[in-house]
């Protein structure tokens, strides 16, 4: 500890020399490390491995405790205040921010509707396509690995890149400037399919943002299902075949029921992604109100509008919606693991 303070003092004086660059953070980090090394040395003298284990885990535990749980608590406190403007104002106003969001805020109503629409379409699209692809790839066709690889390619690029590419493919321009998918439709004579895509007036524009999202994540859903199907033993299928079941019946009556837990996992993971959806919509819609989602609203209202209390309330509502899904799932995962 003392060493750390000395370090800070030394670095303070040095920092005046090095072009005025502020090294406070570096000093805190180094003093922290020195302090921590001291703790480890003392702990290792005790011969107790449990204490040493905890001491070694401590930096991660503290980091998560502060950056996850501490910050959530802090955000909750901000959401119960009237902090608006750059200077913190923690005056207690109770649940006013939440009340206002639901009662006097048309933009948040749009957000909720958009999120619901997006979530339903996104999950349905990913599950149907994912399961379909997994069953197709389960047919022991040649080149299966190549196809599997192709369907997963979108997973490796960023939501931002996806949004930029699809923003162009789904360009709403008409007439001479027609481009993207609309151009294909026009050249195929399918003029009735030409669409404004995500620029369609509210509320249906949001529905089109599902397309790039499904493009990106259906491959992932496929991989989850494929893992589940592969876990069904060949003996079981063979037994059903001997009993005269058709391939269709095998999928309908044996594999689909076995896949139920996979579906549940997939739904939870996809749903929590869609509740958090942010980058894709930013890149596609450039913060258009018609495509607004809570993630974007939180960002805009906090950092552009400096309405910190309102922003914190949106963030906490997002957290609650995700926690409702994920916490039971985590508890269940942990419980089934300890039984093993």
């Amino acid at each position, binding site marked *: 500890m003392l060493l750390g303070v000395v370090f800070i003092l030394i670095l303070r004086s040095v920092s005046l020399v090095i072009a005025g660059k502020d090294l*406070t*953070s570096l000093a*805190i980090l180094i003093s922290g490390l020195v302090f921590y090394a001291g703790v480890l040395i003392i702990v290792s003298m005790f011969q107790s491995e*449990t204490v040493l*284990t905890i001491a*070694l*885990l401590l*930096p*991660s535990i503290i980091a*998560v405790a502060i*950056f996850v749980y*501490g*910050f*959530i608590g*802090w*955000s909750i406190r*901000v959401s119960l205040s009237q902090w608006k403007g750059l200077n913190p104002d923690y005056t207690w106003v109770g649940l006013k921010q939440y009340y206002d969001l639901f009662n006097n805020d048309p933009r948040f109503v749009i957000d909720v509707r958009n999120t619901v629409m997006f979530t339903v379409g996104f999950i349905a699209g990913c599950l149907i396509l994912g399961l379909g692809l997994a069953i*197709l*790839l389960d*047919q022991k066709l040649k080149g299966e690995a190549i196809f599997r690889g192709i*369907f*997963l*390619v*979108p997973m*490796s*690029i*960023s*939501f*931002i*890149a*996806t949004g*930029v*590419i*699809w923003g*162009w493919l789904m360009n709403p321009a008409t007439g001479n400037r027609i*481009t993207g998918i609309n*151009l294909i439709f026009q*050249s195929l004579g399918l003029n009735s399919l030409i669409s404004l895509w995500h620029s369609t007036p509210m509320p249906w524009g949001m529905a089109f943002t599902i397309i790039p999202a499904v*493009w990106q994540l259906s*491959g*992932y859903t496929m991989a989850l299902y494929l*893992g589940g199907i592969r876990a069904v033993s060949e003996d079981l299928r063979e037994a059903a075949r001997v009993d005269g079941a058709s391939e269709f019946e095998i999928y309908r009556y044996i594999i689909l029921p076995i896949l139920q837990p996979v579906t549940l*996992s*997939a739904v939870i993971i996809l749903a929590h992604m869609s509740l*958090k959806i*942010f*980058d894709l919509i930013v890149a596609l819609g450039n913060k258009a109100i018609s495509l607004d989602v*809570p*993630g974007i609203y*939180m*960002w805009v209202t906090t950092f552009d509008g400096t309405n910190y209390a309102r922003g*914190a309330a*949106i*963030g906490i509502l*997002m*957290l609650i919606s995700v926690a409702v899904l994920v916490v039971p*799932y*985590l508890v269940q*995962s*942990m419980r089934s693991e300890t039984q093993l």
Partner: protein
Amino acid sequence: MTRRTLVHILFYIILIALAIVYLLPIYLMVLTGVKSISQVDLKTMWSMPINGLHIENFIAGYKQLAPNITNSLVMVIPEAILSALLGSLNGYLLAKWKFRGSNLIFSLILFGMFIPYQSILIPLVKFMQSIKLYGDIPGLILVHIIYGIPITTLIFRNYYAGIGTEILEAGRIDGASLMGLYRYIMFPLSAPSFAVVIIWQFTQAWNEFLFAVILTNQSNWPVTVALNNLAGSQLVQWNVLMAATLLAAIPTLLVYIFLGRYFLRGLMAGALKG
């Protein structure tokens, strides 16, 4: 038999059609990136480039994004390595040195993987400002490492849980300490997991947008933020924009193409039981 062949042909047709649909956006991105703007604006977006490949789009795109690609690299490489080291240590301790409450601690850590980061954003910004790491790349590295703890710990813990305890017991008889067992037995066995975690963290941090846009100032923008800005500016031609998008996506695409096996394992780990 012939019916079966017919069905197989049908499956192939469906699979090939779907594969084309999945690859089309990427194909078009590449195609547009190598065309001159006159060919993009006219109704020829689907046809092959006629007057040669226009590499100058990539040069123009690169000029726009070069500092940001450097920023991303400077951020992602130390981030991935440090994350993996930390995750490996955590995973080892939580898998092999269980104590009362260690499973609870693990679950509490794991929850951090799922939270929407909007719910911690305001305190995070204030905190980073107060420790003077706001706006700069080291701060972003720190944030990525900390919020990466859950997934890296999870991947390593599951990996180490699969290694039998016999080998550790043998090591103990030879007098190795807790850290000795890690250093001489577990660490040398963890190469595959290190590959999975480093690749995963690399991809995640490279593609990440929210922290990047909030926590860095313009001169330190990673490539995702710069690309989004470029796309929103209306001044950039489509062909240059697509070339720039390809440049921004290429590192993770290459990682996927050449190290896809490890990337997939990271992907599957996120589903817990999946």
